[in-house]
């Protein structure tokens, strides 16, 4: 029994194939780069090759992410909120609060005790593009995206950055560079501003019990995680596979639809 999840993000496309006890067997990754359908197809084949399986042996596939409708084939579609929640709940069953910082859209989700979405909130119009902003920050400071996070931890004098919108924050970052501020201090300032914005989203869907988990590509950014933990005053679960969390969740939901069909006697 194999299920597959395809997460077509605006930045990158991730595919995973899970076996019956939901461990990741095969995986595929491609830059979406303006051609979502091709990226999904290539990543899917890469995952299949990794598991040395033919397409026929996949029992159910679910697509998610902004390009989910372009995947084609008899593939069910679910939103990123539902998939990231299913994935994170599977990884950390005590999670009641989920933050997903995507390239364009960020979401704060409150889960009930069954790991289902009880309340969620997207960023408002001004808070869009947080993921993309961190990428551009790395470009401006000429630092690889992965190292952005670690550097922030060494900051001793964080520079204030207006967190209302990424365009405004960028002009302020350039101003800090001009005044010779150290990259570590600038990144720390940016992380705190973005953390503040995400935290205000989370507070509107808040529940006091349960753990907080961070999903999506930004989870690898240690500086962001640290800033979020400071603003929220609570530890945050980070999964090593957080970038693929959406795709894993999609595959888990594919499994759920199979089990539901078996229960109601209608064969797949």
């Amino acid at each position, binding site marked *: 029994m194999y299920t597959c999840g395809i997460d077509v993000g605006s930045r990158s496309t991730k595919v995973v194939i899970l076996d019956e006890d939901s461990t990741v067997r095969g995986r595929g990754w491609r830059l979406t780069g303006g051609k979502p359908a091709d990226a999904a197809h290539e990543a899917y084949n890469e995952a299949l090759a990794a598991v040395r399986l033919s397409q026929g042996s996949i029992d159910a596939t679910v697509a998610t992410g*902004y390009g989910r409708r372009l995947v084609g084939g008899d593939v069910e579609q*679910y*939103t*990123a*909120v*539902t998939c990231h929640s299913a994935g994170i709940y599977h990884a950390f069953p005590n999670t009641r609060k989920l933050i997903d910082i995507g390239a364009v*859209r960020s979401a704060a989700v409150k889960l*009930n005790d*069954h790991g*289902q*979405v*009880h*309340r*969620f*909130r*997207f*960023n*408002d*119009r001004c808070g869009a593009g947080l993921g993309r902003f961190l990428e551009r920050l790395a470009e401006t400071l000429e630092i690889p995206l992965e190292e952005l996070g670690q550097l922030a931890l060494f900051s001793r004098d964080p520079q204030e950055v207006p967190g209302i919108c990424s365009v405004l924050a960028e002009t302020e970052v350039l101003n800090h560079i001009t005044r010779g501020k150290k990259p570590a201090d600038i990144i720390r300032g940016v992380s705190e501003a973005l953390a503040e914005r995400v935290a205000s989203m989370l507070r*509107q*869907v808040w529940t006091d019990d349960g753990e907080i988990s961070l999903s999506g590509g930004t989870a690898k950014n240690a500086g962001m995680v640290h800033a979020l933990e400071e603003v929220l005053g609570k530890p945050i679960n980070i999964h090593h596979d957080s970038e693929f969390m959406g795709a894993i969740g999609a595959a888990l939901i594919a499994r*759920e639809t199979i089990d539901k069909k078996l229960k109601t006697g209608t064969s797949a």
Partner: protein
Amino acid sequence: MPIARLIESIRQKVDDPSYPEIAEWKASHPGGKAIGCFPVYIPAELIHAAGMLPVQIAGAMGNVKLDEADGYLQSSVCSVGRSTLELKIDGHFSGLDGMIFPSVCEISRGLSGVLKRYDPDFPVIYIHYPQNLKSAYAKDYLVNELNRLKSVLENLSGNKITDEALLDAFKLYNERSELLSELAQFQLDHPERLSASESYLLRLAGVVVPAERHNAIIEEALKLLKDSGDRHPVRLRMVLTGAFCERPPVEMLETIEAEGVAIIHDDILLGQRWWVEKLPLEGDLISILAENYLHNTVINPVVFQPESTPCNHTLDIVERTKADGVIIASAKSCHPAHHDSHCIVRICEEHGFPFVRLEFEEDQRVFESTRVLFEALLEARERLPIAGTDKGNNVVGST
């Protein structure tokens, strides 16, 4: 389906920002003048009685880029404010012979000042409605304001506003209120046969045509609806609130309805349904208008009615219509709507209603985030154990 054809014909006309019907009306009414009315409520009865065409200003519906207006109004101003100025500057409003601005908020007030300086010989009238409805001095003040408006309209049109003309106008607009509430009742009872976006388009048809034509359109629609079949999927019945002034893009409602969410009650174009009861027809008509403004106005975010808070008002509607939840849709930067929304959010939480909160803007082209919002809401509800109304099971989303 004839009803679909009628609505489609209205959609084409409504999308044209130059309001072509004004020229049509002026062709058949030589010397006739048209007066633009900024939302929400303007006493159209007075304008009609002066033999003029009341034109309800409803923005450019995204067909016009707001680059001229950006020279005068900051980007934190709502779209209807900026597009009204844009349509005036780039000539789309050339058919209008004057504009009336009510005391809705500082945008309406500020815009009237900017326009007065931009075009000093274009008549701009600002009318301040009383907010202290309980004060014994409010009625005299409002009668004075309405008489001031009446004399301005008389000078502008060159016609005397006789009692007979005003009485005819009262009857005409009473009839319209009746037809509109019949339409709203049909939208509530048969969402599968009349969607909110269609009912909204039928109301929009009256934005630029005289009341008589608008009544005829709605009458015809109601007739066609009688034997129309089911056309819209209904998975969830929700109430929409917050879009009382700037009107939302039609595509936004259609995006929501495409997910199977039926909007069975809304407050869009609230100015057309301002009176709770029909206006009486005996006595001095100006003081009837003033009297009714103080005691017979629909609950809304821009009149100070402390005895009915926005939350209780929304709760009554949800219970009366037996809706599954509430959509709080407010225009971007609309302060009155945003202030009320936090109180409505709290009442939904206390009563376990699912609610969705979103913003709209006139030059919005992409409704992807609106669509994902409702998709995620419905997905979550289906995966909840039993989608009941107890506290645990309401699912809420918002941008």
